[in-house]
């Protein structure tokens, strides 16, 4: 699936729910499925700064595709991390660098995108893009 397709799929999943509480419930469910980062990878280098909960995000580059793993001590943050991983994991650096990232707006969890320091969402997106950019540069130079 392309990034765009997964994004649309997620939007549709969330649009089934009218009630915000159900949306959060679903998000919490999803947090349970996040591909967990290896405990040894829970390093300061993989810690996303600028959020109230601790979030770790790690990436692996295999056969031209990037795979992400994550964890957080907050369940909602973990759910958000999983959404992002569903969207971006298994794509090429170029695809990730060029992807649009407004879908959280569309699923009605907009407040998580607001650039306050309390949530890690923006920082997570930024980190994902940074990883992708780094692999892109590496690829070009090799």
């Amino acid at each position, binding site marked *: 699936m392309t990034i765009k397709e997964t994004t649309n799929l997620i939007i549709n999943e969330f649009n089934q729910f009218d009630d*915000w*509480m159900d949306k*959060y*419930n679903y998000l*919490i469910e999803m947090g349970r499925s996040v591909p967990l980062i290896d405990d040894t990878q829970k390093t300061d280098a993989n810690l996303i700064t600028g*959020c*109230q*909960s*601790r979030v770790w995000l790690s990436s692996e580059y295999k056969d031209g595709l990037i795979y992400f793993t994550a964890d957080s*001590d*907050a*369940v*909602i*943050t973990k759910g958000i991390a999983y959404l992002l991983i569903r969207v971006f994991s298994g794509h090429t650096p170029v695809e990730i660098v060029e992807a649009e990232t407004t879908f959280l707006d569309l699923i009605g969890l907009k*407040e998580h995108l607001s650039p306050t320091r*309390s*949530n890690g969402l923006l920082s997570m997106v930024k980190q994902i893009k940074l990883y992708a950019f780094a692999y892109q540069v590496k690829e070009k130079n090799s």
Partner: protein
Amino acid sequence: MSEISEEKIQSVRNDFPILSRTIYGKPLVYFDNAATTQKPNIVIDAISNYYRNDNANVHRGVHYLSQQATGAFEDVRKKVATFVNACNPNEIIFTRGATEAINLVACSYCEPFLNAGDEIIISVLEHHSNIVPWQVACERKGAFLKVIPITPEGDLDIIVFEELLNDRTKMVAVSHISNTLGTINPVAEIVEMAHKKGVPVFVDGAQGLSHGPVDVQELDCDFYAFSAHKMYGPMGIGGLYGKTSWLEKMQPYQLGGEMIDRVTFEKTTYNEIPYKFEAGTPNVADVMGFGAAIDYLNELGWDFIMAQENDLLSYATAQLQAVEGVKIIGTAQNKAAIISFLIEGIHFFDAGTIMDHLGIAVRTGSHCTQPLMDILGINGTLRASMAFYNTRQEVDKLVEAIHRVKTLFA
């Protein structure tokens, strides 16, 4: 039941337009008063009235408006002085808020009086604003920061404080009320102990002045800092009380217009206090708003404010304690209406996010007290900080929200 009638509280609530708005379609329950309090109409009106009718620069013109603005501005200085019972209005310096007042003293006092090897005492409970300026002053001068620890309940350990005080101590800087735990510190006792050793005391009153009367002469503190926005007044204004004897010996903080006496290219002499510390055009409009806030508090009276806040504190404490898995962080005997708590097994960010959707504004995180969080061994808390316009029904909504959070994250 509380002794205060619901009609009285409702009429007070009507003074605050924001309290009738909704959040996500639910009535706002505002429990973040330690971050900033809401503003009554008379404060909002004072600011807009100033700009509509009275705007002019102060201390500068012979013209009518300027003189009127100057008079009104200086009247608020007097009002603030009376409010904290300073000997003299010249001991009140207007600043942007508590943070600027702390920085002012940390610069203007430490520059002439702090030397290598000296010590400044703060406490574990301090807000970053009452840590970093002293820390940097110490770094600059080769002095040392000493920290008063707390007991498990969240009280300052006064025995250790006494041990920390010595000949090298040049300042004791402590908060009046902890913004995170709500502990009301024994400031008068601290001042007495410090003064016995000839050490001045700076009180960070950012949380102090909104919860009860403050008499700086009775406390005998050397400095007292405050922010109007935590006292139902506007943001961007606050002040510093300082004893004349210190203020006169201290260096100017910022340099520029207003704070000078005579300027030549060879040498500048400085204006007298308080103007020596008020460089540039002051925030006159917000000073007017601050004046209105003080009028408002005087009108309401501390008796009402304290009775209502104490009722809320004991009611909320009992209600929260009755919820399984809720742990109150900070259980000092002497507390203001600020309650930090955790819900077992649930991250404060998760809980706060859901509460927000229920219309309840609580603060989550470290509350600008990271060193305190480190000592407590936690990353943060949920904090409900209450004001006289909050109600028991709102506390019930908070408790209901905690139950929903528990169900959701079970």
